[in-house]
C-alpha cells in the first residue's frame, strides 16, 4: 500500500512537473511571432527579386534582403525554442517555394512597395514588442528599428 501510494505519488509528481513545463510552453494557436516571421520572409524574397530585376537598386536592396532574411532566421529560432509544437508549421512555410514575387512594373514601383511593406513591418514589430515577454521585446525592438532604418534608406 505504502509503496503503491509512493509510486503513485511519484507518478503524480512527475505528471504535475511535466504539466507545469508544458503549461507555460503550450498556448493554443499560432505563435504571435509567426506574423512578423512571414513578413520578414516575404520582404527578403521580394527585395532579392527586385534587386535582380533592377540592378541599379541592388546597392540598397541586397542589404535589405539580407537583413530581412536574418530577421526571419532569428524569429523562427525563437518560435522553435518557445513553441516546439509550431516548429513543423514554421519550417514547412520556410521550405515552401515562395510564390514568385510578381516583378514590380518599374524600379520606382518596387521601392515604393518595399517601403510600404517595411513601414508595416516596423509598426507591427514595434506594437508586438510592447506586449511580449522581455527577451522577445528585445528582439522585436531591434527588428522594428532595423525596418525603420531601411525605410530611411529607401527614402
Amino acid at each position, binding site marked *: 500500500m505504502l509503496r503503491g501510494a509512493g509510486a503513485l505519488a511519484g507518478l503524480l509528481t512527475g505528471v504535475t512537473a511535466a504539466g507545469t513545463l508544458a503549461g507555460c510552453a503550450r498556448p493554443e494557436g499560432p505563435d504571435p511571432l509567426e506574423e512578423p516571421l512571414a513578413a520578414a520572409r516575404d520582404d527578403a524574397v521580394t527585395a532579392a527579386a527586385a534587386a535582380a530585376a533592377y540592378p541599379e537598386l541592388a546597392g540598397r536592396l541586397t542589404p535589405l534582403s539580407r537583413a530581412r532574411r*536574418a530577421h526571419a532566421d532569428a524569429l523562427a529560432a525563437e518560435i522553435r525554442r518557445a513553441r516546439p509544437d509550431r516548429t513543423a508549421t514554421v519550417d514547412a512555410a520556410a521550405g515552401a517555394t515562395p510564390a514568385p514575387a510578381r516583378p514590380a512594373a518599374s524600379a520606382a514601383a518596387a521601392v515604393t512597395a518595399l517601403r510600404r511593406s517595411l513601414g508595416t513591418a516596423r509598426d507591427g514589430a514595434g506594437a508586438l514588442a510592447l506586449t511580449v515577454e522581455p527577451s522577445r*521585446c*528585445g*528582439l522585436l*525592438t531591434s527588428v522594428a528599428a532595423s525596418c525603420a*532604418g531601411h525605410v530611411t534608406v529607401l527614402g
Partner: protein
Amino acid sequence: MLLTALGTEHAAIWVYGLVSAFLPASTATGLAAASLAHRERRDAVVALLARDGIAAPPAAAAYRPPSPVTDAASAAGLAAVAEDDVAAAWRAVAERTEAATGGELRRLALGAVTAAATVSVTWRDLAGRTPLVAPFPGDGSET
C-alpha cells in the same frame, strides 16, 4: 541599466555638440532633430528616476572619443558610435523590462533604438560604414 541608457544619452548630446562643426550643412536639420530627441529622452529618464526618488547622475564634463575628430567622415563616425551605444543600452532595457509594469520604459526603448537606427543611416553613409542599417540594432553585434 536605465542609468547606463541615461549615460549614453548624455554622451550622445555631448557628441552632437562636438561634431556639428565638422558635418556638412546638409545634415544640420537631421543633426538638430537627433540632438533634440536625445535631450527629450534624457529628460524623460530623469523624470522617471525622480518619480522613484532617484537623483539622476549628471553628464560628464567631457567624453573621450575613441578616435580624433578631424573631418566630416570622422565626425560622422563618432556620431554613429554614439548612436550604437544608445541603441545597445536601450535594447538592454527593453529585454529586461516586463510588459505589465514597464510599458513606458518599453516605449522609450523602442523609440530610442528606432531613432538610432534611422539617424545612423546618414552618419554611417558619411563615415563610409556598411551596412547602413544594422540587422539587429542594439544587439551588440555591430562594430
